[in-house]
């Protein structure tokens, strides 16, 4: 059962995947439609031609790239389906599921040392350089590209909140309450962040909070921009200048000036670290929870939830209710599978059959933008990444730059909402 049997989730259009017709729901992501159709392998990897498919389902890992409507390397988890959309696999000879060049992976089981490959002889070296150039690069240059209209004049807002998860919503609510005209920029197609995952953990704000905040933002003259990614930020004296790029490849980017920025960019899923951790069928818990809640995606028949987070347990119950055979495991040493995960290997050597591994392990703060803006970050230990360093008010060391939520360290949705409120209060003062 690829989807929950709810009429809301019934496919209403068709996209093409390498020419084949795939049922889809308009507006859901291409990656979700393909997973629902049992197509976990979207491409072959850059060097070893290993099978590649969606992992984070949230736009950060770039594992789900495919050519879409003639444009190479688009993140299919961020591209909405519409009737007739053309999706093509990249970097595969004879198709992604039985790529001839996968032999490279088997020829070099311990990895290919590109620095010292064929350096013993001039002829061999020239051949290696020529051959590897042919293999390099995913996708091909677009044949023709539609023009993008000029960007609008610079816009000004009292404040910009980057990210509309619980922390961003908290900040936006606080700013709107103070009458500030703000831009709330959200990279996904709807506001809510992890509230859209329907974990329903104790203390979680309800998802209905998102439209409520949106109304308040609009009432104060502000805007919620969806599918809007802040790709760069610079300082011009007292102002921050933000480059806001929407997902639509034909929309011109916007330049937004503001004196106050609240970063609520959340966190990114990190893959587990064990052999074949890149196999399709391993999905990050938040991405999958979100696709299950909003698109009714049931990714297979047998799932193993790996890790011990409360979110993972909540998702396990929902997957079981959706009819999947679900088991939990605290830790694993490997996965196995041909082009999709088929077994999880436990420390004692025991193998658990599955077609889906739900990874509920560590996440890292999505602190790139904050660090690019000059905000100091602190190492969280383990492989937890760098969190933006803030004062209790949410201020960073950069004037006018605030941060809240998981970009400042792991926390529950309720805590994130509260930290957003605090940062919004301070930013609006």
């Amino acid at each position, binding site marked *: 059962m690829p989807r929950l049997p709810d009429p809301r989730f019934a496919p209403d259009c068709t996209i093409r995947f390498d020419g084949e017709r795939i049922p889809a729901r308009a507006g859901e992501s291409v990656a979700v439609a393909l997973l629902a159709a049992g197509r976990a392998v979207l491409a072959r990897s*850059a*060097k*070893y031609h*290993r099978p*590649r498919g969606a992992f984070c389902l949230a736009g950060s890992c*770039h594992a789900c790239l495919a050519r879409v409507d003639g*444009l190479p*390397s688009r993140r299919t988890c961020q591209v909405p389906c519409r009737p007739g959309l053309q999706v093509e696999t990249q970097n595969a000879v004879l198709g992604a599921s039985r790529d001839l060049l996968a032999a490279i992976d088997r020829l*070099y089981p311990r990895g290919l*040392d*590109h*620095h*010292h490959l*064929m*350096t*013993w002889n001039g002829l061999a*070296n020239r051949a290696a*350089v020529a051959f590897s*150039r042919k293999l*390099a*690069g*995913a996708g*091909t*240059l677009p044949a*023709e*590209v539609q*023009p*993008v209209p*000029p960007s609008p004049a610079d816009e000004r807002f009292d404040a910009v909140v980057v990210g509309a998860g619980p922390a961003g919503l908290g900040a936006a609510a606080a700013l709107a309450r103070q009458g500030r005209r703000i831009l709330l920029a959200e990279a996904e197609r709807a506001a809510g962040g992890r509230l859209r995952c329907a974990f329903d953990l104790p203390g979680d704000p309800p998802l209905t909070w998102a439209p409520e905040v949106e109304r308040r933002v609009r009432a104060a003259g502000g805007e919620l921009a969806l599918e809007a*990614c*802040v*790709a*760069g930020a*610079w*300082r*011009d004296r007292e102002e921050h200048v933000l*480059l806001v*790029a929407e997902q639509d*490849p034909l*929309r*011109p*980017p916007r*330049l937004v000036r503001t004196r106050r920025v609240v970063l609520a960019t959340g966190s990114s*899923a*990190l893959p587990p*670290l064990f052999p074949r951790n*890149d196999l399709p069928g391993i999905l990050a818990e938040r991405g999958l929870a979100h696709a299950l809640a909003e698109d009714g995606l049931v990714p297979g028949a047998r799932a193993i939830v790996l890790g011990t987070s409360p979110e993972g347990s909540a998702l396990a119950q929902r997957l079981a209710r959706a009819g999947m055979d679900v088991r939990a495991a605290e830790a694993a040493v490997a996965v196995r*599978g*041909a082009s999709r995960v088929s077994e999880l290997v436990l420390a004692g050597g025991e193998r658990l059959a599955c077609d889906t591994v739900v990874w509920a392990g*560590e996440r*890292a703060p999505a602190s*790139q*933008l904050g*660090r*690019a*803006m000059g905000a100091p970050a602190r*190492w969280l230990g383990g*492989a937890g*990444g*760098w969190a933006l360093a803030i004062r209790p008010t949410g201020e960073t060391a950069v004037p006018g730059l605030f941060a809240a939520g998981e970009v400042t360290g792991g926390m529950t949705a309720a805590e994130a909402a509260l930290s957003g409120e605090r940062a919004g209060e301070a930013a609006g003062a």
Partner: protein
Amino acid sequence: MPSAKTLVCTCEDVTLAEVRRAFAEGYRDLESVKRYTGFGTGPCQGKSCLALVAGELLRLGATPAEVEPFTPRLPVDPVSLGRLAALDPGGLPLALEAPVAALPGGERGPRPGSPLPARADVVSVGGGIMGLALAWNLTRRGVRDVVVLERSYLNAGASGRNGGGVRAQWSTPTLIRLGQRSLALCAEFAVEMGINVWMRRGGYLFLAPTTEQAARLERNLRVHAENGLRTRLMSPSEAARIVPQLDPSRFLVAAWNPDDAVVFPWPFLWGYARRAEAVGAKVLTFTRVTGFERTGARLSAVVTDRGRIACETVVNAAGAWSKEVAALAGVALPNRPTRHEILVTEGTKPWLGPLVSVLGSGLYFSQSQRGEVVGGMGDPSEPEGIALGSTPRFLARFARAITLCAPATAGLRVVRSWAGCYDVTPDNNPILGAAGPPNFLQLSGFVGHGFMMAPAVAELMAGWMAGDPPDEIFTRFTLDRFQRQAAPAEDFVIG
């Protein structure tokens, strides 16, 4: 079933084993591991892999100072050239600049593993390609007591920030000769030095959009023919057969030398450093020169933030920092360090053979071995000074220029931009030979062509230091030429 690899970077297929191997080979700090393994250089720009690799390096025994996160490069999320071209560069002053952390090094930076030697025959201030190539060439000439001092990691300066072009198409016989020699040395590098540099002779294609620029190409053509280059002039339609994506209405004539090339810059530094070290030279990273000691007119020691090294000869190979270093020895160089920005797109299958350069605009671009478009563009309004921040103005200017020149590039997404510094001299020629103290030798003043010239110039310089008669470059390109009379300027620097 795929083999049992554990991947840390799925964009570029970098395995956990590769990270461990890099660490074991001495690439310990995050910036070096990034460059040596390639992790974090794909479209996700480290969103998934940076924390994993940092955690692994700490487990392997790296110090926290070695595991500072690398500077996030803009754009933080890929944006296509077509969309960046929609921005008006006129509304984007250069002052809009991303803050950059200081280069790793200094008091709280990583500490080098090996101790500072008490003395050396030759100390190179600067561990870019100039200093390292010189060190290796000196060891080949029997001068093995050489120390190279690098203030940060290898490839931190312009040697690790350039576009990797190597050409012989210059406007003077001297630079043509040096370019030809460098091309020959680059072609042998992988086998001779045991590390791949991915040299590809796709040629350089210069496009002349005006009759004035066309006349420049015609002038050069005669010099090229006299000096044995295979340069040809061609019509726009002929040039479009070499690069079908070019818009032939945008230029009048093109010059093409099929023997020019692009390389991958980073492994040159590792190759020179490793081979020089293997025969006794010392390459000390994260070691900053703070002054010199004198005995009479001569420099007698180099003072660093880790102690002093007594020495016979000091070479100033500090690139954009050469003026600062010379000032420490009381020598005033006329060099003006000037920022030069560059970017890279996502990789696609091969479509672009040559490095394309549009005369007059400063635009140049090529396709790397990994399939990325790598390109830069000089900005006449760029002020003098060392600056390593990226600007949205550059993104917009470059995007406009390249999408006019090759419209299909509009669909390619920019994944990363960065900046390095040219070491600009009044006549665009280098400064070589002694200046001030008789044992203070200059190896600086390359205006965006230092990387490509280094293999040839370092070879000549090492020969001269080892007793060969001086090549004309060591008498022509001395600092005192600026007192004598206006020397003819090199007019074929690009970017």
